[in-house]
């Protein structure tokens, strides 16, 4: 059998797991695909390789797929997301003195309480002319959007009371240690690296801000995706099979060993294993705590591209990127997420498919059975930390109800 070649661009992060496993464990080959992975070190380069044909698909931060489609800071290039590669997996690590003031009791903080304390600290420091500076991995990242959401809902005005800058994840621990930034919101293993060095303490994980926040997606140029629908279906099925393998605890050692290889993350298998088993070391010298929803790669149809997730990201793009709301942009942003392709890929299989393509984000407080066109589907809580809900059909009203 001849295999169809597909190249996927990625950054060496734990949540690039599904494409890596699809290649290494034969899930791609089983779908007739010769998967090649192209590693880079900046999202800008992953994006450029995707747009100029060095790769066919990419492991991408979800908001960047929407920003690229809408043409933020460059001409618009439509991207499509037929599959979500993971939810959450990031944390907020603060310099030891700030962490001590916000969470003196130690452990993971309560996001509401920590937010109120942070607001007081941020204002005090701003008035003293010593603004708190926080690092995120990219302007168009869920890290940036979720951090800002948490700050703003806690009474902090991002860009006024605090400064938010971009730091490359591999340099984040350094930046924290030297005082270049006072806190970072990054994915694993970079929080752990900072904690191990004693440069900071993890006070929150982003899953506490939005329990089911979309993180990385599989992005494909829309034209290319529509030109080869059948091949895309096979790729989506291969990634799904990789997800099923990934979530089984007896595979964690094997998965961590594969991800740690020099070709992929080139890092510590022990740190990677900790992250994929939802264990987080909050402070140096402590023992890891287990936070079951820390990173979410597959369970509960996590790979399903909910249109409402894209809509929420668009709302935050409007809020934080100086973009005026427009109905046309809102629908273009929503169209980036393609549940129709996901459904077509699994039609006639036993894989559970939600009946709806969008949901009221934040409305599920406890595990709930939802309508499915095939299979049985239970969804866990998708709450925002401030108990708000987001209706993807009323983005403008949502934005008007939010502070600054």
């Amino acid at each position, binding site marked *: 059998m001849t295999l169809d070649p597909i190249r996927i661009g990625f950054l060496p992060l734990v949540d690039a797991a599904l494409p890596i496993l699809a290649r290494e464990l034969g899930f791609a080959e089983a779908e007739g695909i010769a998967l090649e992975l192209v590693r880079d070190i900046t999202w*800008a380069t992953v994006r450029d390789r995707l747009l100029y044909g060095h790769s066919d698909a990419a492991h991408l931060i979800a908001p960047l797929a929407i920003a690229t489609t809408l043409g933020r800071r460059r001409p618009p290039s439509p991207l499509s997301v037929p599959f979500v590669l993971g939810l959450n997996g990031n944390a907020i690590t603060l310099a030891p003195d700030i962490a001590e003031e916000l969470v003196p009791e130690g452990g993971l903080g309560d996001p509401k309480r920590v937010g109120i304390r942070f607001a007081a600290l941020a204002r005090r420091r701003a008035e003293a002319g010593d603004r708190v500076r926080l690092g995120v991995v990219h302007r168009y990242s869920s890290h940036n959007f979720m951090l800002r959401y948490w700050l703003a809902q806690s009474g902090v005005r991002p860009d006024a009371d605090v400064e938010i800058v971009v730091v*490359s994840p591999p340099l984040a621990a350094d930046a924290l240690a030297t005082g270049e930034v006072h806190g970072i919101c990054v994915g694993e293993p970079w929080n752990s690296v900072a904690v191990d060095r004693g440069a900071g303490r993890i006070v929150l994980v982003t899953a506490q801000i939005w329990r089911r926040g979309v993180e990385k997606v599989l992005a494909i140029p829309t034209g290319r995706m529509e030109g080869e629908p059948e091949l895309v279906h096979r790729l989506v099925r291969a990634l799904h099979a990789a997800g099923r393998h990934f979530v089984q605890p007896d595979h964690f050692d094997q998965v961590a060993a594969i991800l740690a290889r020099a070709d992929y993350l080139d890092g510590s298998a022990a740190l990677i294993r900790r992250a994929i088993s939802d264990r987080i070391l909050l402070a140096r010298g402590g023992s890891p705590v287990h936070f079951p929803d820390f990173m979410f790669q597959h369970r509960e149809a996590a790979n399903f591209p909910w249109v409402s997730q894209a809509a929420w990201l668009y709302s935050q793009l409007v809020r934080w990127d100086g973009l005026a709301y427009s109905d046309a942009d809102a629908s273009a942003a929503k169209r980036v997420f393609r549940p129709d392709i996901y459904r077509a890929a699994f039609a006639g299989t036993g894989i559970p498919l939600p009946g709806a393509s969008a949901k009221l984000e934040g409305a599920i407080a406890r595990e709930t059975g939802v309508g499915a066109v095939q299979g049985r589907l239970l969804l866990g809580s998708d709450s925002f930390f401030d108990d708000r809900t987001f209706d993807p059909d009323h983005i403008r009203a949502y934005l008007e109800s939010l502070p600054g």
Partner: protein
Amino acid sequence: MRIAVIDESAGRAAIIQEGLAEAGLTDTVVLTERHGLLAQLETLAPEVVLINLENPSRDVLEDYFAISRALATPIAMFVDQSDAEATAAAVDAGVSAYVVDGLAPSRIRPILDLAVRRFEAFSRLQAELHEARSALAARDTIERAKRILMEKNGIDEPAAYAALRSQAMRTNRRIVEVAEALITVENLVGGRL
């Protein structure tokens, strides 16, 4: 027109800078350090920034350019929509350009084309250098393997070489691979070298 060349390879940056100078563009600066990059750019206020595609500072830089909208000089990635091939060629060569708002594409294109040619030339040079280095290394490896055989078996140089060659032919490997294997074994069990 001030041009900043950002590249962690000082050699390549120098080659670009020299090319620009030949084309009469002498107001250029080369930045190879990651630390303090943004502060330097702020001071220099270049109108064009050339950066290698694999530079680890690209995300940080793009964010800085986005924020600089609030400053006097908006700067954005140069994507020539009237000639998509030009941008594609730049990405292929491994370079990207950012320019301040309002600069005419006709002024940028020659700079980008020059950078592309210089990047390609640099890649070619590197490939040749790599080839030359591995050829030298291979010759050295074979020399060492020959010496081991000569000492161990009391044979002369042509005989040692013939032994390596015939082993390579029998096992369908390159002579240098056989030589490497021999040296490894000698290192493990021979107790010297």
